[in-house]
């Protein structure tokens, strides 16, 4: 086709190199022949001064170079592996002293307390598990109902907006949720929710006994539920949407109601993905420390009542690591981290296994027969009429029934006697479907309500204090009124920026390593990524303290950004690999077939093609890092040097002026995080569009 003559210089070169069979009228064609690249072509006399492509290619030696590509990948993967190993090792060595002193009984015995005697993690493990279990019991049904509603029932335009909102809300920092829970939910619990729960018969005494306190296990569980909901909804929704349209239509075409399509076809197919979503939510809930520490009351005792105070592993680390005496005291806090680490890794790895098992297992065998449904008297007789004729006649094409024969043969599919089943049950089925849809819609509202309330409340409380001066003045010293948060904003930016610079290159190189190499080492690295991304951020904070702060004899921006980099690294590896894998193999082979060396294919086909995903993934990791509090807790010298830390300390003060600062900072932080996530999505969309 001569239409291809509208090519740029680069494409023209490619055509000469191998795609030259475009048409005789293209002068490039003869250039290709002359350079001998067209097999069998005679070398004609070239009537003009065409470049000798072969000579150029030879001189450029395009296939050379890129020698650094493979070593770079190995280097990136090595850095990544070193990080994983360092995290695991430092937890092990840090906690060694405590385990040596208390023996393995540390895990299950007694109450941890700062004064060491008889310390153990037992009560904290119970507190962690109970809190998480209550949270998931609340979050899972609501989240899954909301996901079903979003994926299946809500009109697609509404669903698109709602899904974007949910994904944005997933980025709400836990410290903001904690702040809201501490200053808004907790008083509400004390004055209304807990008295109400006491009055519930039977349960009131047994499960919800004790004085009205405010901070409680239940409140912590509610906070965890609110925090895990967006992720749960968004992951489950993706799993549901991933079920092919063809499967849905097959069910619809058989007369299934919309609810039946969901229940019988979509849900079973999406179950592995949903199990993974719930597992991730559990992992997140287990590891959350900061928001829980704000609202659980921090009383490391055996939980008697859900409305009483409690403590989790994470919250205890937050509260006790700073005060712990060097040596055995610090070591036993790290040991708590080790226990938490093992707990979350087991959950994450178990979740992966669950997903594989779900994928591998085929369909069940015959379902157990239920009782014959009432209200179907006609069915049995209908079949009695059908069977004999059908199983005989219909076998191998049967009698090529004459068209008029059908009318006289009453046995088979005469429209005169349509199948009785669907009609009888349709009303009931549709009613069931409508109720199920309503329930799912209510779940959607229930999932959205607290998050919307949280955002609205933060804006309402934070906006009055927000001014230009607030943003540009440094944080005032303690007991000095006024001041701003400029040092906190700058500190956050510095820490996160440095972390990005440290984490992005090894993240991308590791992703390329995983992409280029099948086999055992990448499988190990992926396992490492699963482990590392499951490590609670508070544990990463401890690790950074052990590895960086202690040897350097002081907290620093560098230590904090190393902690955040460790946190971002597995997220980036996963997001980058996912983005890279979206580039089609065809395109890569097209590049390779032109003689491009691998590194060039990767640079100009793979990386360019996956740029939207890469940018978006890294920006989302950045958004997540800005909102982190726990890794900074022990690594940053002062709370004035990060927005999240400032909120954390100010929120716990009784002075309303400080609480005011916390709200305003939370608003700034929320704005930054949401803007960054929205920007990531926009960039991805824009780059994709521009590429087309």
């Amino acid at each position: 086709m001569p239409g291809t003559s509208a090519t740029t210089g680069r494409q023209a070169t490619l055509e000469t190199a191998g795609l030259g069979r475009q048409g005789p009228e293209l002068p490039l064609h003869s250039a290709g022949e002359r350079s001998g690249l067209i097999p069998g072509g005679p070398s004609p006399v070239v009537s003009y001064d065409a470049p000798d492509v072969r000579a150029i290619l030879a001189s450029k030696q395009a296939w050379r170079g890129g020698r650094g590509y493979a070593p770079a990948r190995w280097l990136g993967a090595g850095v990544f592996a070193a990080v994983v190993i360092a995290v695991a090792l430092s937890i092990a060595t840090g906690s060694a002293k405590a385990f040596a002193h208390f023996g393995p009984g540390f895990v299950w015995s007694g109450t941890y307390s700062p004064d060491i005697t008889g310390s153990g993690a037992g009560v904290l493990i119970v507190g962690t598990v109970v809190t998480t279990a209550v949270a998931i019991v609340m979050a899972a049904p609501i989240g899954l109902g909301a996901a079903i509603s979003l994926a299946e029932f809500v009109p697609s335009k509404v669903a698109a907006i709602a899904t974007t909102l949910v994904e944005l809300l997933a980025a709400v920092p836990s410290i903001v949720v904690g702040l809201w829970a501490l200053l808004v939910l907790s008083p509400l619990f004390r004055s209304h929710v807990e008295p109400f729960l006491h009055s519930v018969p039977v349960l009131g005494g047994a499960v919800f006994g004790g004085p009205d306190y405010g901070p409680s296990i239940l409140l912590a569980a509610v906070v965890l539920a609110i925090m895990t909901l967006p992720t749960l909804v968004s992951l489950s929704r993706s799993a549901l949407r991933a079920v092919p349209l063809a499967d849905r239509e097959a069910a619809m075409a058989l007369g299934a109601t919309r609810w039946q399509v969901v229940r019988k076809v979509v849900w079973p197919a999406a179950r592995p993905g949903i199990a993974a979503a719930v597992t991730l939510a559990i992992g997140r809930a287990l590891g959350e420390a900061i928001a829980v520490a704000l609202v659980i009351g921090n009383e490391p005792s055996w939980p008697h009542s859900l409305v009483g105070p409690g403590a989790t592993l994470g919250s205890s680390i937050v509260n006790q690591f700073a005060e712990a005496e060097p040596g055995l005291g610090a070591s036993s806090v790290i040991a708590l981290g080790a226990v938490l680490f093992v707990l979350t890794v087991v959950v994450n790895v178990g979740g992966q296994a669950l997903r594989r098992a779900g994928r591998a297992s085929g369909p069940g065998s015959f379902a157990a027969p239920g009782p014959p449904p009432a209200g179907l008297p006609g069915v049995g007789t209908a079949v009695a009429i059908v069977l004999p004729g059908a199983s005989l006649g219909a076998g191998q094409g049967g009698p090529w029934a004459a068209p008029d024969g059908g009318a006289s043969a009453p046995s088979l599919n005469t429209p005169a006697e349509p199948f009785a089943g669907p009609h009888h049950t349709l009303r009931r089925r549709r009613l069931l479907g409508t109720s199920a849809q309503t329930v799912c819609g209510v779940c959607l509202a229930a999932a959205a309500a607290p998050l919307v309330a949280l955002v609205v409340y933060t804006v309402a409380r934070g906006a009055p204090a927000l001014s230009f001066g607030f943003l540009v003045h440094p944080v005032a010293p303690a007991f000095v009124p006024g001041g701003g948060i400029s040092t906190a904003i700058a500190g956050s930016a510095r820490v996160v920026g440095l972390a990005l610079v440290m984490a992005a290159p090894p993240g991308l190189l590791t992703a390329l390593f995983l992409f280029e190499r099948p086999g055992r080492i990448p499988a190990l690295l992926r396992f490492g990524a699963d482990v590392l991304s499951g490590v609670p951020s508070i544990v990463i904070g401890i690790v950074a303290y052990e590895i960086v702060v202690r040897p350097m004899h002081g907290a620093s921006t560098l230590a904090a950004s190393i902690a955040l980099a460790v946190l971002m690294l597995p997220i980036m590896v996963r997001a980058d690999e996912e983005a890279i894998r979206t580039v089609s193999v065809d395109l890569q082979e097209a590049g390779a077939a032109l003689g491009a060396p691998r590194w060039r294919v990767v640079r100009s086909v793979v990386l360019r093609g996956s740029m939207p995903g890469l940018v978006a993934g890294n920006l989302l990791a950045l958004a997540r890092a800005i909102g982190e509090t726990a890794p900074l807790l022990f690594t940053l010298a002062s709370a004035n040097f990060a927005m999240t830390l400032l909120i954390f300390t100010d929120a716990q003060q009784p002075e309303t002026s400080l609480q005011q600062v916390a709200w305003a900072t939370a608003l700034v932080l929320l704005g930054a995080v949401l803007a960054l996530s929205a920007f990531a999505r926009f960039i991805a969309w824009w780059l994709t569009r521009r590429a087309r």
Partner: protein
Amino acid sequence: MNPVPASVPTSVPGPGPAASGGPTIAPERPALRFQDVSVSFGNHVAVRGVNLDVPALQVTTLVGPSGCGKTTLLRAVNRLHDHLGGRVEGRIELGDLDIYAPGTPAELVRSRVGMVFQRPNPFPTMSIFDNVVSGLRFAGIRKRSFLREAAEVALHQAALWDLVKFRLDQSALSLSGGQQQRLCIARALAVRPEVLLMDEPCSALDPIATAKVEHLITGLAGQVTVVLVTHNMFQAARVSDNVAVLLMGEDRIGELVEAGPADLVLHSPSDPRTLEYVTGRVG
């Protein structure tokens, strides 16, 4: 708003080629009747002004080039445009049922109309048996003996019984592509539909599997009304009793050009556009 289509509003009452006085077409009432049917998505009209009577218990094939709205028209019968925002105007009658009447539930229509899709789409999470009886289960039938018998009948009808009778509880994905497609046919037949819609059922199959499915289709005539969509003229000639030709009009909107007994339409079409298409000069 609808200009009178240039289509030939054809029920198929005309005497066939009448060899041996044999298959006179169409008993009193057509199984399926399209009256001035148009389907549009947003502002885009995909197919318009279709008038067609589909005779009961025969194979009627919709042929035409890609993009002329065959599949769109077929899916309209099963109300599969409902959830994708497609709008159907005009009237489609299934026996005595007005498919798009306000009070007609889509599930009712679909349980009376079977559908086989372009690519085999057995439910991946279900066994062979569960696939076949899925329509009956959707309808609320749980009685085991009933389901077993219905499954056996349907699998016989799809010529699959002997192949799968000892492995009914295996995954449907353990079957080959052609077998999967026959399983989908059995699944559609198990609810004993009045009309079976087949949307290019062989397009994803190899020639041998295609031959088997085609054999099956011819065998189904007389038991169920089959409406088949294909762009393969040879296939249309092999399996059809009647052929309806859809072509794209000047404005790229699909129209029904001609319909009638297969021999007549394929060999001596009355419309010049049909002749052009059949002989390969358009599309």
